[in-house]
């Protein structure tokens, strides 16, 4: 029961209280890009959660080894990158070779795996000293947070596209920046600090 509560609370915290995309700016470019394809949101949520969970679990296991405690952060980061790369190549190769996945699905897999959001999850778990269940919760939460941000940006970009009154100078990226800024400001109501200071 405690494990489940731990998992749920961490996931909720990652989605709302510290939305990693809108409150922390992680994976924001990818969220804006993915927001143009609402049909892929489900796939993305699943893939990002999957990659985050597997990567952060493996990294947590590695972190539990004694020599890792004294390891410089550069080495730790390289190990995390190696784990992420390994997980990606195994999943992509299995999907390509055994399931004959199309290039499109592999493309989605590439964005879902190799982005700043997924790469940060092991770092967050390490710095926040999350438990094993907490690590899984933060991984699941990362996927949901990403899709939530993408869905909000998607509805915003549609609103902006329909708005003919936007002054010429603000049309396009400037208006989008302001829109995302307002979303980010809304999430600042939960927390007023940067994730890593």
């Amino acid at each position, binding site marked *: 029961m405690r494990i489940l509560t731990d998992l749920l609370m961490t996931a909720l915290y990652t989605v709302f209280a510290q939305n990693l995309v809108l409150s922390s700016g992680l994976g924001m470019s990818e969220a804006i890009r993915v927001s143009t394809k609402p049909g892929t949101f489900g796939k993305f949520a699943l893939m990002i959660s999957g990659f985050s969970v597997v990567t952060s679990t493996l990294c947590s296991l590695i972190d539990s080894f004694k020599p890792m405690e004294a390891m410089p952060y550069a080495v730790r980061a390289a190990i995390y990158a190696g784990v992420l790369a390994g997980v990606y190549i195994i999943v992509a190769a299995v999907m390509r070779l055994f399931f004959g996945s199309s290039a499109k699905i592999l493309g989605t897999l590439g964005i879902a795996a190799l982005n700043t959001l997924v790469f940060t999850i092991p770092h967050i778990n390490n710095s926040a000293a999350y438990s094993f269940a907490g690590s899984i919760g933060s991984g699941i939460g990362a996927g949901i947070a990403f899709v939530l941000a993408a869905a*909000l940006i998607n509805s915003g970009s549609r609103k902006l596209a329909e708005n003919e009154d936007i*002054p010429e100078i603000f049309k396009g990226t400037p208006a989008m920046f302001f829109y995302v800024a307002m*979303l980010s400001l809304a999430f600042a109501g939960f927390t*007023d600090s940067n994730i890593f200071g």
Partner: protein
Amino acid sequence: MANTASKQNILKASQIFGDYIVMILAPCIVSVMYYGSRAMAVIAVSILSAVVCDFAASFIIRKRFLLRDTSNIFIGAAIAMMMPASVPLYVPAIASAAGVLTAKIPFGGSLRAPFVPAAAGFAIASVCFKEQVFTYAQNTEDKLFGANSLASLLAQGSSVHINKGNVFEIISGNISGPMGTGCGILMVACCCYLFVRRRSALLATGGFIAACVIFAVLFPRVNSNALTSVVLELSAGSLLFGAVFLITDVSTLPKGSVVKVAYGAVCGVICMIMRSVGTYEETVCFAALMANGFSPVIESSVKVLSSRKMKKGAAEK
């Protein structure tokens, strides 16, 4: 052609915001009664800043500025009402400027803004000047809880008891807090005015208050009965003010009765969750911004659900 459309928009905006200005006059008068010339100064600076920023921005982007666009007056007055009377004057000035420059001008005016400019301005001020915005030091000697606002007492989990002696002080807003938002009686009067002028907007207000009431009953922050929890939560901070003035904003309010109620309810739930776990004692502005962001999602979800229901009903027939 575009100029004509723009003029029509400004006329429409001036009519709609004219109603809101009439409504906000009442809290402005009450705040002057409670805090005197200091309240007047805060209101004047806030409005002036909004108007000047709109004028300057319109000049820079070569857009025609018309004084008839009364939305700036509303933005300035609404932000001033949510501020404490003791706030340094630069804070409401910056808040109004931020509201106009970040949530109104880039989106083509108040009638097309996807986020409530007054909420954006106050939220920015809350984050940037937290101490100044949540410190109540004006005329606090004879107030019920001294310099403590009701919202801060609830946030600290302090026990506040309502009795016949203090209930009127609480619902009339004669306690430390934002200078023009605490008077519940006035907010009810504003609702009556809104009922006459734009009654559909009240659906969102209803949804918002209902959600807050349910939340206050289920998760009370005071060790008292449910009714006390509800009265205190509704009277604390700018909750009712937000329900009447921010949630009903014409450009951000979704279309459809059910959608409006759902939008208000979502906003209410977010507001109460933020009050419970968030960093700030005043959360209605953040909740309004978040609900604005969720608004298209709520709209499409309600539509999908209702169409499914209709299909099911048709199939059963």
